[in-house]
């Protein structure tokens, strides 16, 4: 919000930043990643809590990120790799 839009007599501290849906959605990842400065973070949170359009969208992105985080971890190494590493270490020592 710029100064012209702000009602007279209300300074920046009394008028918390109001974000539009577009502005909030553009910040969805920075918000969910916890990367926004405190004031911005608060402005997004306020908008999302009362916005019926943005709330489900933020919820969806949160579920998506949790899902990627969980699924990305599973893997099993070939047992042969461990044998090779043990041999390498023993050899390196000698």
């Amino acid at each position, binding site marked *: 919000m710029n100064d012209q839009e702000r009602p007279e007599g209300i300074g920046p501290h009394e008028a918390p930043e109001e974000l539009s849906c577009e502005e909030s959605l553009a910040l969805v990842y920075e918000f969910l*990643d916890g990367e926004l400065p405190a004031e911005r973070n608060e402005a997004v949170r306020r908008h999302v809590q009362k916005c019926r359009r943005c709330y489900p969208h933020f919820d969806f992105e949160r579920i998506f990120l949790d899902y990627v985080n969980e699924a990305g971890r599973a893997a099993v190494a070939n047992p042969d790799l461990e044998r090779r590493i043990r041999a390498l270490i023993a050899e390196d020592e000698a």
Partner: protein
Amino acid sequence: MDAGDEGSEKREVEISDDRRREFETEALPHLDALFGLALRLTGGDEARSEDLVQDAMLKAWRSWDRFETGTNCRAWLMTILRNGFINSYRRDRSGPVKVEFEEIAEGPGSGGLYDADPEGRVFDRLVNEHVLMAIEELPAEFRVPVVLADVEGMGYQEVADTMGIPVGTVKSRLYRGRKRLQASLYRFAVELGYLP
């Protein structure tokens, strides 16, 4: 060789045996985790991943004296592997950089996964392999920040420092990388008949 030399040699062998046993108990159990990280970073290249794990383990073994027992061994090993990968990644990048400008539907309301499945129900049906495949399909410039941030849980600054790129670039690559992931998952879901 006199008796004294023989004794000290024996002690040395014992010490190095202990050191190796300690390494094997502390470090080797993290092999799967390391391999998993390598697979994510390389986009599913198993041979390259095994090489990365092997190099990281050898490096860890050689600097085992510097590892402080009781601190997080897994995190220490992951850092060694990540550094090894990033070094080779940067070397590969030192030639002319191929930048992909191809854009796909990624903004809100542009026909993406959110519009098709706003509640994210499809995430209950797709399995880990689908995410892994989707990650593998990402070009490296998107895959690496996505893996570091979303799988490893790094913050933007840490990703930027690790990759040697500005934070703003991390932000935009994460945004685009995640949207590409969603587009791939959407495609899998349609192919499997979970979504129309």
